[in-house]
């Protein structure tokens, strides 16, 4: 059971060290982020479960039920789905070292995110119910608000990445794509959550 080379030849050792060192960066951060997003997703899952249970077992009086308007949320869904695609294009551009193109796609994505937030605000102000009106209203605002918080954070992240990508000397390059990839992963996650939210909250 000689599992180890008995005498350390330093060259071999170095290379293994390097392997270990390389492993300690890059992909693990993305892995960590993915694990965090699983956790974050569980928070949403808890909210969704609560909402569905409320809906199933706490029937509201007829006058407290509102029909939610669909056009605006549908527009929101389209905005977010398109922004996922544009972010993907930004990533592709980075990998092909087309810095200018990448920045343009990033900015476009951030714009879509902000448009989503604006449209969400419009919806909030036109809704006939407030946060504390009833159980439905509270849950509606909790879910969309928590998601909106995620979109806000995401938009800020994209703008930071865009700003970093613009810096000469480049903190974000095809060799160091981590900030962009992290923001992208996060953004896809937020979009995915929205699709589920849209189905559960507006369509069901």
């Amino acid at each position, binding site marked *: 059971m000689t*599992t180890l080379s008995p005498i*350390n030849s330093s060259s071999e050792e170095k290379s*293994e060290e390097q392997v270990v060192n390389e492993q300690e960066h890059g*992909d693990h951060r993305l892995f960590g982020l993915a694990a965090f997003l699983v956790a974050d997703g*569980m928070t949403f899952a808890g909210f969704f479960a609560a909402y569905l249970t409320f809906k199933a077992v706490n029937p509201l009086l007829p006058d407290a039920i509102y029909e939610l308007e669909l056009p605006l949320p549908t527009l929101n869904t389209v905005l977010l789905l398109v922004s996922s695609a544009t972010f993907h294009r930004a990533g592709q551009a980075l990998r092909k070292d087309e810095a200018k193109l990448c920045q343009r796609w990033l900015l476009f994505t951030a714009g879509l995110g902000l448009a989503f937030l604006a449209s969400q605000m419009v919806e909030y102000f036109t809704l006939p119910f407030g946060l504390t009106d009833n159980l439905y209203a*509270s849950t509606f605002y909790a879910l969309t608000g*928590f998601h909106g918080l995620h979109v806000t954070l995401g938009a800020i992240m994209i703008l930071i990445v865009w700003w970093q990508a613009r810096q000469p000397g480049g903190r974000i390059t095809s060799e160091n794509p981590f900030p962009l990839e992290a923001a992208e992963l996060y953004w896809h996650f937020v979009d995915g959550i929205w699709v589920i939210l849209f189905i559960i909250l507006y369509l069901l």
Partner: protein
Amino acid sequence: MTTASQQTHQSSSGSLQPKGWLKYFSFSLDHKVIGLQYLVCGFIFYLIGGSLASAIRIELSSPMSDFMARDTYNQVLTLHGTIMIFLWIVPVVNGAFGNYLIPFYVGARDMAFPRLNAVAFWLIPPAGLMLITSYFITGAAESGWTAYPPLSITTPAAGQIIWILSVLLLGGSSIFGGINFIATILKLRRPGLKLMQLPMYCWAMLGTSILVVLSTPVLAGTLILLSFDIVAHTGFFNPTLGGNVIVYQHLFWFYSHPAVYIMVLPAFGLVSEILPVHCRKPLFGYSTMVYSIMAIVFLGLIVWAHHMFTSGTPPWMRLFFTIATSFIAVPTGIKFFNWVATLWGGRISLNSAVLFSCGFIANFVLGGITGVALAQVPFDIHVHDTYFVVAHFHYIVYGGSVFVIFSSIYHWYPKFTGRMLNEDLGRLHFLLTFLGFNLCFAPQHWLGLNGMPRRVAEYDPQFTFINQLSSIGALIMALSTLPFLWNVIQSAFKGAIAGDNPWEALTPEWLTTSPPPVENWTGMAPLVKEPYGYGIKEESIQIQSPDISDPENNKQ
């Protein structure tokens, strides 16, 4: 290369230098420093939580509510529960030993994300301080550690909000820790080390961290909703506003049942490390142990409503959760049989570490048996929310986890400090703890069966004698801390020098100096393919640790 490594070696070997103490108060990125920070910080909170427990037992040594005001009593029991769970057991069995041991076990120089690791630790002291100072400033939360609405909505808001905030911080700390452990175990393994060669504690921590990542966020979300109910007067859990109080219980227990495994699975892992070393035998049934951990993780996620059998759950739900819960006994039983088989035919040193581990087995078997009983709906309907349940979960978390924490301290103290603990004091500590614990909690089963509910400051006078018996047990438990504290403090300065590997253990943390250098090994991390290879191939033990046994050790 050799000179460089020797410098690090010398600066951090030997007993703790006074200079070195400062690093334990700093934002250190070293996983060993962070581990000990968790341990010491957790132990301080244990002493606080223990004092609160003593206050409860003093109040309960007479049937009247005479020792403290009734709402103070509720604050004390809330703080006791919250501190013991979120500030002592969870951070210590996960954070302390996990941080210290996991990088060694996977052959890494640190955790995957050292900075996140330090952040996770430094969330704990402020959260704990906030929780405790709330008692003096605004009055602490008084709705129990479960914080069931609508009670938690109607009790004084300030204390409850502070409670929520600190639990959110501690939950965040726990999630960060969990992510770090998953990444470290899965991604940072030394090349050549396979998953099925990892020491059992890694598997336990992997399972635990999966539970942490999947369930803690649900608690966080729930508490955010609860805080909205308190602050913004929404009605999620407020029946007068159309809310549903049972939904809170579902969400709360979706975290808090797994929380039991978050406290207990790492303890299982630690015992699996300690017993083989002192029995000089391989861990019996390695692969079934791994599978049973994963089975426990899976089942642990689908049994939460067994805490709600009297909450008005429909019959089908009661039935499903009874059966699912009962089946956790199977993988848990496997682990106990395997430990007994590990003991069988060994050369067991009856030292403090082994005594505490075996004490754990005895206590936990009893707690497990009452647990299976409690899983049966008809049984639970009588004893739910009574002292029977109090006894049951103290057998699990104290008789289980805390006994293992003590066992682990006796086992790894030589590695932490480079010095041995005093064995006689250790055995005295065990004797007092074991007797005190059983005297305190065994009679409480009877109290619950005969009509004493939990969380009461006053009770039927017919229960006075048994309660006094229980209080005497608590007193002995409190006293048992003294020999331990004395032992730990004075051994740090005057204990016998331990040497690198006083137990002649095979797991990787022992294949370096005591305490280990900053980067864990002066040379390359050893590849330990058989962490439990006792008695198998005697010669393999020498070959396995070439780089420390060769040049460096001879110089010492």
